[in-house]
């Protein structure tokens, strides 16, 4: 069951994207595009202190301002108990989500929401925010992960006891959790090594950088039901979180998915949505809330800043004997950094007998860290793949050869325990070796680096409905928001199973009242998991088409087969019948049992792990410190590329984000604990002119657990670039850059140190 040897009609075709016309013409409706009559404008007041006790909030003057319809603070939200929430990356706590949405006793970071208003216009809402009087007791703050771990550091959460250590500590600290994964005996492994390399790395928090700010409209009717329009990575997640935070039944909320202008993990939680619902319920009017870009930077995301140490030992011949990593990740103001995933992924591309990773999840006075595309993995891979490169140099072995010698294969035990099934890492290394980029000549001050990356990929709960229209066209309704082109892939899989033209298939995203529960779009799951649901639902339709044909022909259903979009007699024994097309059967549906509709609601299992290897060429300007990426090639095992152009787009997008992370992006805080660069002018993301055309190579080692062999592809491509760029820079100037970003001042300082 992976499609091997099958001759596909639609799988693998580069068809026109179903959402393309609406998006290029501006007709597509994103979160902020929705409006209703009588709608109020909602705005939030944010703390400008990184850490302060809220002594009192006086909203009287704001309430009294004409045009203001509601003012809310944490006192208006239920003080809910702790309860584990699973939105993505590491589990979080609904109580913490509530306290992040609206500060309760303390403001924990610059940008933390302390109050919200709904008013008849934006200007009145802004004026009302200025009339809210918050009396703060300013507290010492801590931003740095190592400072936060020290005894005596200001306590971000005063009741936080470190988990994962025995005995349980008596005193609170900023270390939320310690995790450890190990195989074998690293001490013995390092004794067998002829060469050991150990290095410390640091990285800064970076934002997911989605182009669309968070936006929501909530409208409550007199019967207490609220409609919510917003863009997110999971409208069922929005419903669950709003219900939990506000003490509502989930059936009181209907969440309509808008088109989404990027998420990358940053939209798997709630920020404005519960506040908009509450303001709407208080006023009885629709309320719209839209973040500014500054609010996006100060109040949402980012991913963790880190301090990491990696140590790898190997024999003279390049056999790795042991590897260790200690990772400390900033969680932001509440526990839940992706450090566990960093520990699990750091050395996953390699077949290691002795490996140990230890992680610390550390709270600091920054916005709560949120998932960012393969959460935790790019950081750990930056450290591990950099040390691997340094080790290769010390052993005088080609870096690619060192990776080949130690590559994980089917049967290899992952560093977190389980053995891999069929995987395509070795194939990505071979594709790199065979690629003309790998052997192309380099000029002065130019360097080439390679790095690999891993992501486990996920399945999960997915629902799909396939409705056959009376003219034989088909509507496929899906439960996952389409972020990376899933509608196109779902249409292709439905067309393949049904055997009809792709132009006859229209894929749409259902809302929370019209389609069965589906998990968030995240974890590179949708083409895999939702695809399995679509294949099953389309198969359900085929079974019904065979039954309906059997009724028309007056034979048993077993006597009918479905081939190339037509019902045919299974053999001459069944009788002589002209083939019936899907459209012909659909036209007769009323007479043979009514509408034809297939459905599937599944918990998809068997996601296939993904591996990628990237080649990066850079040129370093020794006078200015500027690094220019000259050429970049991303190679990845996709299992089976359902829509290759979208897979290539994922590889290019992940590489572009990773290059930005490596070279320029960082949150800059002042000594006062306030964010100094909350905008795209000062937060430097790569633009098209910063990057070369990113070449891609898709390797296909099918996942045996999917009908067409699909593996997730969206997250792997952001894992290798940080190290690939760093390894290229080292190759160009002979300096190992262990601190990100490798921005011009840092490159110049490193060159100066070397001199």
């Amino acid at each position, binding site marked *: 069951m992976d499609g091997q040897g099958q001759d596909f009609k639609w799988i693998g075709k580069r068809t026109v994207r179903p959402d393309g016309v609406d998006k290029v013409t501006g007709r597509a409706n994103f979160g902020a595009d929705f409006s209703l009559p009588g709608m109020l404008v909602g705005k939030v007041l944010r703390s400008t202190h990184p850490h302060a006790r809220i002594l009192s909030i006086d909203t009287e003057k704001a309430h009294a301002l004409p045009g203001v319809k509601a003012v809310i603070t944490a006192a208006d939200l239920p003080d809910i108990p702790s309860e*584990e929430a*699973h*939105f*993505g*990356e*590491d*589990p979080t706590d609904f109580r913490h989500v509530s306290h992040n949405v609206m500060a309760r006793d303390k403001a924990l970071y610059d940008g933390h929401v302390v109050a919200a208003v709904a008013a008849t216009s934006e200007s009145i809402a802004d004026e009302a925010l200025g009339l809210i009087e918050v009396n703060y007791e300013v507290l010492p703050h801590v931003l740095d992960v190592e400072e936060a771990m020290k005894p005596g550091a200001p306590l971000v959460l005063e009741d936080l006891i470190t*988990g*994962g*250590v*025995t005995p349980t500590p008596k005193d609170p600290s900023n270390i939320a959790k*310690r*995790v*450890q*994964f*190990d195989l074998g005996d690293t001490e013995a492994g390092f004794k067998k090594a002829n060469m050991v390399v150990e290095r410390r790395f640091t990285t800064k928090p970076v934002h*997911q950088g989605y182009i669309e700010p968070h936006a929501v409209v909530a409208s409550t009717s007199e019967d207490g039901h609220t409609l919510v329009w917003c863009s997110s990575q999971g409208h069922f997640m929005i419903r669950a979180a709003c219900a939990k935070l506000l003490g509502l039944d989930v059936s009181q909320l209907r969440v309509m998915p808008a088109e989404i202008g990027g998420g*990358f*993990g*940053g939209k*798997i939680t709630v920020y404005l949505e519960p506040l908009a619902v509450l303001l709407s319920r208080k006023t009885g009017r629709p309320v719209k809330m839209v973040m500014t870009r500054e609010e996006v930077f100060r109040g949402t995301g980012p991913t963790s800043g880190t301090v990491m140490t990696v140590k790898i030992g190997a024999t003279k011949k390049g056999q790795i004997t042991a590897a260790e990593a200690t990772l400390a990740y900033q969680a932001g103001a509440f526990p839940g950094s992706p450090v*566990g*995933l960093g520990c*699990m992924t750091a050395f996953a591309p390699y077949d290691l007998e002795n490996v140990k990773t230890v992680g610390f999840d550390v709270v600091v006075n920054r916005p709560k860290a*949120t*998932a*960012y*595309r*393969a*959460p935790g993995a790019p950081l750990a891979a930056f450290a591990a793949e950099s040390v691997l490169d340094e080790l290769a140099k010390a052993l005088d072995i080609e870096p690619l050869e060192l990776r080949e010698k130690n590559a994980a294969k089917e049967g290899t035990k992952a560093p*977190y*325990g*389980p*053995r*891999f*099934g069929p995987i395509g890492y070795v194939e990505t290394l071979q594709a790199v070796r065979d690629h003309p980029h790998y052997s192309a000549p380099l000029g002065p001050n130019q360097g080439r680096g390679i790095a690999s990356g891993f*992501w*486990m*990929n*996920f*399945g*999960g709960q997915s629902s799909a409905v396939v409705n056959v229209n009376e003219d034989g066209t088909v509507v496929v309704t899906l439960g996952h928001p389409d972020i990376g082109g899933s509608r196109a892939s779902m249409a292709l899989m439905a067309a393949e199973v049904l055997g009809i033209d792709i132009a006859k298939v229209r894929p749409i995203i259902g809302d929370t009242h019209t389609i069965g529960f589906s998990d*968030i779009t*995240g*974890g*590179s*799951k949708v083409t895999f998991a939702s695809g399995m649901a679509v294949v099953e639902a389309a198969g359900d339709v085929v079974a019904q088409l065979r039954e309906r044909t059997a009724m028309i022909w007056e034979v048993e259903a077993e006597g009918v087969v479905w081939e190339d979009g037509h019902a045919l007699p299974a053999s001459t024994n069944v009788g002589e019948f002209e083939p019936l097309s899907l459209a012909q059967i659909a036209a007769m549906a009323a007479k043979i049992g009514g509408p034809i509709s297939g459905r599937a609601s599944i*918990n998809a*299992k*068997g*996601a296939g792990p993904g591996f990628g290897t990237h080649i990066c060429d850079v040129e370093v300007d020794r006078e200015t410190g500027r690094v220019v990426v000259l050429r970049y090639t991303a190679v990845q095992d996709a299992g089976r590329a359902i829509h290759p152009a979208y897979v290539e787009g994922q590889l290019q997008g992940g590489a572009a984000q990773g290059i930005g992370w490596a070279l320029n992006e960082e949150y800059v805080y002042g000594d006062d604990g306030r964010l100094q660069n909350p905008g795209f002018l000062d937060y430097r993301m790569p633009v098209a002119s910063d990057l070369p055309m990113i070449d891609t190579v898709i390797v296909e080692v099918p996942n045996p*657990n999917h009908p067409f062999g699909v593996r997730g592809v969206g*997250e792997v491509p952001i894992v290798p670039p940080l190290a690939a760029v760093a390894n290229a820079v080292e190759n160009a100037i002979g300096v190992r850059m262990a601190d990100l970003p490798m921005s011009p001042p840092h490159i110049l300082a490193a060159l100066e140190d070397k001199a």
Partner: protein
Amino acid sequence: MAQVVLTNELANQFAGGETKLEVPAENVRQLIRALEERYPGMGPELEAGMAVAIDGEIFADPFLEPIGPDSEVYFLPRIGGG
């Protein structure tokens, strides 16, 4: 009997640091019941927040997944992605 591997955190909390165990069970539900019997308090922890890998395949919401007599079973943190 299935070879069961606990996370270090669970092993330290409930099993005196022992990460590798042999447990008779034909599915995950039976396994968790057997572990709860052996280490009171571990069962709810496993059910609430853990994924299971059986012979290399990871199950995020395990319940009745079969376990063979020679299966290798890992309890892992229940995790997602971005």
